[in-house]
């Protein structure tokens, strides 16, 4: 059995979060992960508050266990989504792309625990001051929006800089990754890509098939030129986009090309227009299974690897 400060802080069986993937992580997926003993997270993405409230209610109809909501702070609806999270007294809020300072008072009053995603030591320190209860340190191996540092380099540096429990994200897809993250100082892990193949994840069948077929070099980062790099599977769309970044196309036009691409992948499975976000671990995925099984499998594997680690010490 693995027990860390994350289990205690959140009252969950496995210290494993399911990443808040925009357009993908809905109430059903989050509830399935929480019901399985981890922490499921509903992604607010760029969606309006009504959508988020609906997903929270769907999750509550499936599970009594705690779950979280991820707020993308750059979303035009961030203010209203933040309000809904406080009103609904969601157990955990994870944040990305900014500083949630202005929402902290309302969240604290509602008993919502704030756990931000950070990609640098300075951001980690700032979030401690703002009132975070734990931190998710996400390396550039992850899918979706990525930072600069790898998980291997980022996690120990964040652990050295703060006393809060750290959850490692980016590059973790099985028990080996989880055990390795623990050696770096993490007390929990967040996985996104692995949960794309959960039975309860309702992405298009083409998306799942592409993940199952992916090889190690099949992800690509696009959007660096615009300042918000995103990792996803190589498709005709992302290859074309990557080429365009080096042409004299204007930033506005480039930005426009990317709009709606994630939705096209998730809902229509369209490789010509879609952006199938995935982390570098995509190639490690080999089967579809229930979320609860993923959690159990990963944690049992991690436990074994952590025990076996002693064999190198003579």
């Amino acid at each position: 059995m693995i027990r860390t400060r994350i289990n205690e802080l959140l009252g969950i069986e496995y210290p494993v979060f399911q990443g808040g993937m925009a357009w993908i992580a809905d109430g059903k997926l989050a509830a399935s992960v929480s019901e399985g003993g981890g922490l499921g997270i509903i992604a607010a993405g760029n969606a309006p508050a009504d959508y988020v409230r609906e997903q929270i209610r769907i999750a509550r109809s499936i599970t009594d266990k705690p779950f979280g909501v991820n707020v993308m702070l750059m979303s035009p609806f961030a203010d209203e989504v933040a309000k809904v999270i406080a009103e609904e007294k969601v157990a955990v809020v994870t944040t990305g792309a900014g500083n949630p300072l202005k929402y902290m008072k309302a969240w604290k009053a509602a008993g919502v625990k704030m756990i931000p995603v950070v990609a640098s030591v300075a951001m980690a320190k700032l979030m401690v001051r703002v009132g975070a209860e734990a931190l998710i340190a996400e390396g550039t191996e992850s899918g979706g929006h990525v930072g600069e540092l790898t998980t291997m380099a980022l996690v120990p540096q964040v652990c050295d800089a703060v006393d809060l429990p750290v959850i490692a994200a980016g590059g973790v897809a099985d028990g080996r990754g989880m055990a390795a993250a623990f050696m770096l100082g993490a007390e929990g892990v967040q996985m996104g890509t692995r949960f794309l193949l959960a039975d309860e994840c309702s992405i298009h069948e083409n998306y799942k098939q592409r993940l199952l077929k992916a090889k190690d070099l099949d992800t690509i980062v696009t959007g660096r030129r615009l300042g918000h790099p995103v990792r996803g599977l190589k498709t005709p769309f992302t290859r074309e986009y990557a080429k365009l970044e080096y042409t004299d196309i204007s930033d506005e036009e480039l930005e426009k090309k990317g709009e709606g691409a994630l939705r096209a992948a998730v809902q229509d499975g369209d490789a010509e227009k879609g952006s199938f976000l995935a982390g570098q671990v995509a190639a490690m995925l080999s089967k579809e299974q229930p979320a609860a099984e993923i959690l159990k499998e990963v944690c049992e594997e991690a436990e074994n690897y952590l025990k076996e680690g002693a064999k190198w010490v003579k």
Partner: protein
Amino acid sequence: MVFEAIQELIADKMEMDAEEITMDSTFKDLGIDSLDMVEMVMELEDKLDKEIELADKIETVGELVKYIEEKC
């Protein structure tokens, strides 16, 4: 004093001459992104012995100077 502190910090971090940094310089032109900004503001706090809670969007060195002088 605040301006000089910022100027010195940026010159050191970005390896450029302090004279190149003026009140009108934008952080974007200086090559400082939002994550660098968080790091820089924390160093500034130590340097100036002040708490700086950045809430507004700040684009130029002059705006940062004004913010710190008026609100911190």
